[in-house]
């Protein structure tokens, strides 16, 4: 079975510097330059947990086709310090170049002989342009634009947009720095110039794309879904969600509050939701531990709540700025007792945008917590997507009333397990009670009633299974020798690998509770060989599949070094499995 997606040509540019030298903004600028020239991008950022010093790298992957993952090799390495060469000299591709500061004392002796050494006097140009080290980035951007055969006018326009608010002078010195970097390369390294990034022919009628990461997508999705209240305590990797939401609250009319801790965050959001607001909170694994008691409180009081969990490697503080998928079983099982929980997991930023909008409707419909799991790679890695479209989205508040209802019973029984939710202030009396309770919410320890209420709450999960649960997605050919099963940000890596592999397909699971057991069983019924891929030590998705189905997984690929899986690793693994078979 031939794959439908062609092998694509990708140009990978890695920029390395100390934290604080602006690697992230330079990478985003290069990504935007590529997008405006008609290309797709995927930006991977790796950095330690500190603000100044340390080593930051950002890899911009550019392609005419959709690009969904980083690469293990670099075609161009931009070294703004010696450390970048020392740490990445073994990652050069076959036909690659090193852009570095020719004026600084940079040791290039470890760099392989076939790598083109493209020295540019970064600091000298920066000094001449505006006497500021902050301009070094811009010189490098000009230089790489020249090497890639890009258009300097597009870069200059981007600089004007980026620095316009800082005044004309700042724009002027940056444009000068970029132009001199560009000129230095064009004049001194003619034979190393490539024609990769020339504006694409279709650029004139190009659909507008944006470079967007998962954090921004979650914030945009929440706003699109009519968010009214959110309390979020800062934590890597989700802190930028709160930054975007805090900045835009007056514009879109919701409240963001920074609470004293995650316990307060979830309880505040529950309070706001009880009062009738569409409410959300967001955290990573450690914060979710603190939210665990509130998670079940929302379940017991039947209060709608959206929780975003952006995973990073644990346990404890773990690797705060790296990536992992070790929180799955915690989210599926945390809290004492049983309550209905809806758990979804996005595979990329666009899916996160779509799933969070759905999560708000599900939370309101089923009056229970809905968790959307993302991870560091989704949170912080920008990808090019067409502008998000939410025109088809309808806010659905479910069985919800702000009117006075005669003989109101907040927790009355119903066939689907869902009762009409009222709010305080409307004159309908009820108690939202963390104790087991009767139809009005008064505490009750009656065993018959306990059975009824437990069954009522859990019934909602069955209703959700029947009415809303989605099947896993199949990518690649219908029939294949090897079927990869995975979830979360591995999606992008696997889709990228699929371009290189024949007769391999991918089943992407994004509904975790309720779990689409029947659909998955059917989808995998003809699979010849099932390879489960995930980033944790114990194979938490494999455990879930084993618990919910009779599917036999043939092989597990588990990665837990805190690093994203590269498509090359999947390709090598598949080839190895084939040679063994």
């Amino acid at each position, binding site marked *: 079975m031939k794959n439908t997606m062609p092998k694509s040509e990708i140009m990978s540019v890695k920029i390395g510097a100390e934290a604080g030298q602006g690697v992230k903004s330079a990478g985003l600028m290069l990504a935007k330059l590529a997008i405006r020239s008609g290309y797709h991008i995927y930006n991977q950022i790796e950095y330690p947990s500190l603000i100044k010093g340390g080593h930051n790298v950002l890899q911009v992957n550019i392609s005419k086709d959709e690009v969904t993952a980083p690469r293990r090799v670099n075609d161009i390495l931009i070294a703004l310090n010696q450390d970048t060469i020392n740490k990445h000299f073994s990652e050069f591709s076959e036909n690659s170049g090193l852009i570095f500061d020719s004026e600084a004392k940079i040791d290039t002796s470890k760099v392989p002989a076939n790598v083109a050494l493209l020295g540019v006097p970064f600091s000298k140009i920066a000094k001449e342009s505006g006497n500021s080290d902050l301009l070094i980035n811009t010189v490098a951007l000009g230089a790489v634009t020249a090497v890639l055969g890009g258009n300097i006018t597009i870069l200059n326009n981007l600089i004007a947009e980026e620095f316009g608010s800082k005044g004309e002078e700042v724009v002027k010195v940056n444009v000068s720095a970029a132009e001199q970097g560009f000129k230095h390369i064009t004049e001194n390294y003619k034979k190393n110039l490539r024609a990769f990034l020339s504006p694409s022919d279709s650029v004139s009628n190009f659909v507008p794309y944006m470079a967007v990461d998962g954090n921004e997508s979650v914030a945009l999705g929440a706003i699109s879904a009519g968010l009214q*209240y959110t309390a979020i305590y800062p934590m890597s990797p989700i802190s930028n969600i709160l930054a975007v939401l805090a900045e835009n609250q007056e514009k879109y009319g919701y409240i963001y509050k920074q609470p004293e801790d995650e*316990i*307060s965050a979830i309880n505040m959001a529950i*309070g706001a939701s009880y009062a*009738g607001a569409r409410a959300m909170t967001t955290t990573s694994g450690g914060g979710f531990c603190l939210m665990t008691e509130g998670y079940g*409180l929302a379940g017991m009081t039947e209060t709608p709540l959206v929780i975003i969990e952006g995973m990073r490697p644990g346990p404890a503080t773990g690797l705060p700025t790296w990536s992992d998928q070790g929180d799955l079983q915690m989210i599926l099982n945390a809290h004492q007792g049983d309550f209905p929980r809806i758990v979804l997991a996005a595979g990329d930023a666009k899916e996160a945008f779509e799933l969070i909008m759905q999560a708000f409707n599900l939370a309101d419909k089923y009056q229970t917590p809905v968790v959307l799991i993302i991870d560091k790679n989704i949170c912080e890695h920008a990808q090019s997507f067409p502008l998000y479209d939410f025109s088809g989205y309808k806010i659905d508040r479910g069985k919800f009333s702000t009117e006075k209802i005669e003989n109101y019973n907040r927790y009355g029984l119903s066939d689907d397990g869902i009762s009409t939710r009222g709010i*305080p202030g409307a004159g309908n*009396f009820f108690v939202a009670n*963390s*104790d087991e309770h009767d139809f009005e919410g008064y505490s009750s320890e009656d065993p018959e009633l306990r059975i009824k209420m437990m069954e009522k709450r859990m019934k909602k999960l069955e209703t959700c299974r029947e009415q809303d649960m989605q099947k896993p997605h199949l990518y690649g050919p219908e029939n294949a020798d090897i079927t990869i099963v995975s979830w979360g940000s591995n999606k992008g890596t696997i889709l990228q690998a699929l371009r290189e592999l024949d007769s391999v397909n991918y089943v992407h699971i994004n509904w975790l509770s309720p779990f689409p057991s029947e659909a998955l069983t059917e989808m995998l019924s003809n699979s010849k060989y099932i390879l489960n891929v995930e980033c944790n030590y114990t194979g938490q998705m494999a455990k879930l599949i084993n618990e919910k189905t009779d599917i036999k997984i043939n092989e597990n690929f588990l990665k837990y070094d805190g690093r994203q899986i590269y498509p090359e690793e999947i390709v090598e693994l598949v080839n190895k499995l084939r040679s063994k078979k």
Partner: protein
Amino acid sequence: MTKMSDLQTPHFPDWCPGCGDLNIWGSFKNAAVQEGWDSSNTAIVAGIGCHGHIVNFIKINSFEGLHGRALPVATGIKMANNRLNTFVFTGDGDCFGEGGNHFIHACRRNHDLTVLIHDNSLYSLTTGQTSPLTAHGFKTKSTPQGNPDEPFNPVSLAIVSGATFVARAYSGDMPKLTEMIIEANKHKGLSIIDILQPCVTFNKVCTHGFYHENTYYLENEYDPSDKQKALERSFEFGEKKIPLGIFYKSDKPSYEDQIPENIK
């Protein structure tokens, strides 16, 4: 108009006969009738402990949250709907043990909430262990050799943490307590009333008799706007020397008053 019968639920209080919770319950209902609080304008949040049962005995919309977490739930309610008159019932273990962090932050943020602390200086629902307000040396089930820890002073803590209405009451004086609840509720900003109440089952020292004997009201000429003075008086405690009344009151914008009009 709220009538006393409107507040009645099918459940009669199950607190121990003589418990201070009964007085707090009665005083709150008296205040609700006087001020017209009902499910169309008011919400109640309670924590967990003996006090938390109160949600079953007052027919006003309520949320009984988790142990220690009444304040954040109430904060969320108030931010989402500033028109709701929001009360927090909390115990001394609830508020200063598990809820200690929420308490100091709610004070400094000055949310427009009325917080009634059922202060019996014990964990009573778990049958009488030491609480963060239990006196040094006091013998409880968890400190049979005598409590080695110093207690918080809830009034001083509220003042230094930034609450803008800080009072102490005694549950047995229901007319005064009713008056104080109404005054606290009229205040814009975080209002705290530390309500001294006996635990008739597990505390044989701080009885109704003890509080009758040892409390007095701050003088008429006492000026609650002086923060330094308020703090000084808050440390006064001892035989015949437990002051009751409003220690501190200041006019500052509440948290909710600072939320821009277009997103309220």
